[in-house]
């Protein structure tokens, strides 16, 4: 039922500033015979906070690992800070922070020793921030990493990733293991740190409320391709849901200009429409003998409809 609309084209970011933190072209990646990424084209301008959305198995983790050179790619090209990225290495690593989905490194090391070890590799390291976050997030520097809970390990991974004040921070499901309080604190910290000129954040998540709180740009990965990357406010401005309800219900959702996706639920037809033509919708409702209601969908609704 969906049809490509101008707002949701991957090329919509082609008009983005030339100084892109990241450019991906025709990226392909397979595991054995299963193709996970099928020609991803994506440009992430510098200075944006991007929330990467996609269903389970959409390839978010694979995409993020490929971007950093942690997973070999089959075809395509990746540029980080304007330089081709083939595998990790070079001075650009000073500018990158990464929080993996699960943190299972160095279980035998104490938190303090681990942070000292990591800090030794970086040109800059915000010791004051590290100390503050350890205190606020109640991480005991004398404890062994193996004795931390999953949530605490995730907090440590986040501290370790943001302490070098990276220009590009990549986070793979960073808040999944955190309690709501820590999630809020993390988002606040993240935004305070990263909402600075030249800083870019890409994070994958299923928790759409966090993306709303961060007022992030939304990137949607589906069917192995990047469907779109747009500011949330812009999505909200342009996308509306028309609810057409009539007693006899609908066999299928009716068509209307700008229709992205339509489905039938009970007696109602739910139409996700880009830049809805109100006159056309009213005429449709009148013709079909249905009541019309226009709603602004939440990000979660959008995710459910589009992902």
């Amino acid at each position: 039922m969906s049809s490509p609309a101008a707002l949701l084209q991957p090329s919509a970011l082609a008009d983005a500033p030339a100084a892109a933190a990241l450019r991906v072209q025709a990226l392909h990646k397979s595991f054995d015979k299963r193709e996970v990424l099928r020609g991803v084209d994506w440009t992430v301008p510098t200075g944006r906070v991007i929330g990467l959305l996609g269903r389970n198995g959409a390839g978010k983790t694979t995409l993020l690992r490929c971007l950093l050179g942690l997973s070999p790619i089959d075809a395509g090209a990746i540029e980080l800070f304007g330089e081709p990225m083939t595998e990790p290495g070079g001075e650009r690593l000073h500018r990158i922070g990464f929080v993996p989905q699960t943190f299972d490194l160095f279980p035998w090391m104490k938190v303090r020793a681990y942070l000292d070890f990591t800090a030794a590799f970086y040109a800059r390291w915000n010791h004051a921030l590290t100390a503050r976050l350890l205190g606020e997030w109640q991480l005991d520097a004398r404890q062994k990493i193996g004795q931390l809970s999953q949530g605490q390990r995730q907090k440590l991974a986040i501290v370790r990733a943001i302490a070098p004040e990276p220009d590009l921070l990549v986070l793979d499901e960073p808040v999944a293991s955190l309690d709501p309080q820590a999630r809020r604190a993390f988002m606040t910290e993240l935004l305070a740190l990263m909402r600075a000129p030249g800083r870019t954040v890409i994070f994958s998540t299923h928790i759409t409320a966090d993306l709303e709180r961060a007022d992030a740009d939304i990137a949607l990965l589906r069917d192995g391709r990047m469907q779109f990357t747009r500011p949330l406010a812009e999505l909200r401005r342009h996308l509306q849901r028309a609810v057409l309800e009539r007693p006899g219900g609908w066999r299928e959702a009716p068509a209307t200009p700008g229709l992205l996706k339509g489905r039938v639920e009970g007696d109602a037809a739910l139409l996700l429409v880009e830049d809805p033509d109100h006159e056309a919708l009213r005429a449709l409702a009148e013709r079909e003998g249905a009541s019309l209601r226009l709603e602004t969908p939440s990000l979660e609704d959008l995710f459910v409809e589009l992902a």
Partner: protein
Amino acid sequence: MKAVGQLLRLPFHRMPVAGTLVLLAYLGGLAAMIGLHAPPMIAGVGAAGWLWHAMAGMTLRSVVRPETQLLPGFRRYLALAGAVGLALGIVLPLLVMLALGGTYHAPLIGALLLLAAAYGLVSGVGSKLSLVLMPALILAGWQPRLATILVKGAIQSPWTPPLLVLIAAMLVAYALRPLLRIDDREPEPSPLESTSLDRSTRAPDGAPVPRGAFAKRIAGLFDTVAQRAMERTLARYRRAPSARLRTVLVRRLLLPHDNPPAIALRLVLVAAVVALYFFAVMHRQHFNATVVGAYAILLGMARFPQLGHGMLRMRPNLADLYLTLAPATKADYQKTLIDALLVLVPVTVLTVLAYTGLGIVLVHAAEPLRMLLTAAIVAAGSALVALAVHLIGPENRLGRSAVNVVVTVAAMLLYWGGYWLLGAVGYALGGTLLALVALSFGGGVWFAAQREFQEREPRFDAPLG
């Protein structure tokens, strides 16, 4: 250079006691060389260097992951740390030796120190390359005179030092290459899998274990066999559901490679390795039958440490099993686990008997029945105890290691004692006495542990440490 210092300190973080002891041995060796004016003490320094590099290898295996390579300059600093290790472990003691006037075969000694360090690193990393010594040992065991001639010739040859340096460089390069290669991760098998046949992609410390093509093929074979066993059991369960088949299904899930074909495959593989080793190295030596039986016990008992570790790792995933089984009470669920795992006792007895039988054939043992009877009784008792302590025993690594050592050594000692007893008082009386001691003790421990395990709350939390 801070990063180099941090890399060099890693083995101390991981193994503080062993690291300190090795450092003291190194310093002691150097001090002895200088203080006693004894250049031959360089052998002690070389041994410390070998141990140090083995520890460094073990540490590297758990440190060098794709994520770690996002640390800026990681490979460069790693190379620098290696150079510092080379300077301290080889160049410095060699210079001290030369300064003390020990110039005899200096290039050869330097090359040997390098080879020892490289071999330590390779062993620590867990690379199969550490088996390169095997051909030399086989040769020495098979043709000792020829080996002596070759060694004497090698000592005199000017080509030996560069050849040894080349071998050391190749060892290091081939050991580190898979670690530094960024590759996609393989899916893991069940954490309860035995590591004895290279079946796990993860070491107990969580580090990925590199596997060669042959090992991957064997792993694939085991997985196919496990899959078929599960499908057969499922089909039988669908045809005629029963409590017994339900337990078998749980068993197939928890212990995917303890079905009859997989056990047979494992026995064949171990038998092939043992037979090859025996024919190559040991066939000239006289064997004590108790050693063969005790070795069979050791091989059989090697299954249990992985069980204890795997049960801990599997705990969060067992929540699925709990919900699927929907037991009436928590104790029922614990009982289901116990019933499923109890199969390890007959499997262990069978395995030990098979290995003992193989040993009997290989060494032409004079009293096969005495060996088999002792092995069967001891294996049954020891397997019950091992299963019990791994169900309710300590969770931390040190505690588990201690339990493993105690149980295994006790089982081997019991075999020796039992074998002597059967010889002293006859098979009937000795066997009965041994069975009374081993099985009553094993049974007692097992029933107590079973009761304790059933009383405990099922746990699904991730293990700490």
